[in-house]
C-alpha cells in the first residue's frame, strides 16, 4: 500500500516521499518499511513500540494512537513529523 513520508525521513528513502510497503497491521507495515529502508522504523517508533512524540501517523486521514491498528490493502498511510519550537 501507499505510504507517504515527511521530509525528515527522506534520507532513508533516497528522497522519495511516497513509497510502497505491506502489512496487515501498522506494526507489520513498519517492519516492512524497515526491511526496505533500514533504520527508518526506530526514528518513528521507540523501543517500547510507541509512536514518538513528534511523529503522527494517519490511516485514511484518521490519526491512529498506536501501531496495533489493522490495515487493508487499499488504505493510505500518512506519516507526519510535527515539531514546535526553534
Amino acid at each position, binding site marked *: 500500500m501507499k505510504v507517504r513520508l515527511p521530509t525528515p525521513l527522506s534520507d532513508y528513502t533516497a528522497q522519495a516521499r511516497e513509497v510502497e510497503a505491506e502489512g496487515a497491521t501498522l506494526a507489520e507495515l513498519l517492519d516492512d518499511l524497515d526491511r526496505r529502508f533500514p*533504520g527508518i522504523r*526506530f*526514528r518513528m*517508533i*521507540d*523501543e*517500547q513500540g*510507541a509512536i514518538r512524540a513528534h511523529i503522527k501517523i494517519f490511516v485514511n486521514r484518521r490519526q491512529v494512537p498506536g501501531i496495533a491498528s489493522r490495515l487493508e490493502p487499499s488504505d493510505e498511510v500518512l506519516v507526519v513529523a510535527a515539531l514546535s519550537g526553534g
Partner: protein
Amino acid sequence: MSRLLVLVGTRKGFFILSSGADRHEWSIDGPHFLGQVVNHAVLDPRDGRTLLAAVRAGHLGPTAYRSEDLGKTWTEARIPPAFRKAAEGERGEAVSHVFWLTPGHASQPSRWYAGVSPPGLFVSDDAGRSWKGVAGFNENPDRIKWCGGLQDAPPDGATLHSLNVDPFDADHLYIGISTGGVFESRDAGATWSPLNEGVAADFLPDPGVAFGHDPHCLRVHGASRDVVYQQNHCGIYRLDRGADRWQRIGERMPKEVGDIGFPLTLHPRDAKTLWVFPMDGGTVWPRTAIGGKPAVYESRDAGESWQRRDNGLPREQAWFTVKRQAMTSDTLDPVGLYFGTTGGELWASFDEGGAWQCLRMHLPHIYSIETAIVP
C-alpha cells in the same frame, strides 16, 4: 604532517575545524546533519579514523552515526542504543537522546561506550555499528533509586555522562549521573558502587547521602593512575584514589567567583593542571559568566591555588554559557584550550590559557567540543 581537528557538536549540526599543528590557519567543514542535534562527536584516538556522532532530529528518534573518512560519508548504526523492550505490564523506557560517547580502553580497539538520557549505559564491540545495553547498570535494581526516579530533569532530561575508562584498567569504568552522582565499576560494568564521599549535596535534605549528587563533568587523568577531578553542582573536587574521599578544591577559588560551573578539562600530561569555566549558580542559577565577565580559571597545583585566565576574552556584557561537554584541551605543546558557548562562539587559547581568541562566531548553540590529531 599531522592535522589538528576541533569537533563541534551543536544544536543544529556538526562542524569540523581543522588546522596544521601550528594552529595558525583554520578551515571549517560542515554543517553535517544540518538541523539535527549533535550532542557529542568523538574521533577514536586508537585508530585516528573512526568518528562517531550522537544525533537526534527534533522529530525523530535518537541514533548514532559513524564515519571513517572524517565525515565525507556517514553510516547510521545498524542497532542504535535502545533500552530492552519491557515485558507485559512492566514500565518500559525509551532513549531520548544519546548524550556521551567514549572510546574504550586501548586494549579493546573496537569497544565504545555511550551514555544516554534517561540515564542508561550502552556498549559497542564493533566500533559503533551496533549497541547493546550494559545490563549491570541498565537492569540494576538500584538504578532508579540512584537517579532519584526518572523524572525529566535537569534541562534536556536526566542523563548519564562523563564516561571515563581507567587508562590503566580496561574493566574500571567511571560514570556521572545528573542527578545521581559519580559511580564506578571495577568489573567492566557488571556491578557499580557510588563514589561520592566528601561531595556536597546541599540541595538535598540529607547532605551526607551516598548518592543523589549532581556531578556536571568528571575527568579521569589519562596519564596519572590515581587522580580524578569533577566539576559538580556543588563545587570543584579532586579525588586521590586510595583516600577515596573527594576534596573540595574549589573552596580556594576567589569568593566573588565561587566554584560553580559545568565543564572541566585537564592537561594531557600534567595531572596537577586543570581548567574550569565558572558560571553563576546564585539565585535562579543563570549559568552565565560571572558578572558578564567570562574567564577560565586555571590551577597548576591540583587545586591548591587558582589563577584567572581572561586575556582576550570580553571584559563586560558577555553572558557566556559553556556546557559540560563544551570545553576541552588538545595534546600539543603548549596545550591548546577550547570552549564553545551556547551563543555559537568558539574560543581558543594556544598557550594554555595565556591569551584567548575567538576562532568562530555565528555557529549554532554549541553542545560539545572535542579535539583529535589525524595524520
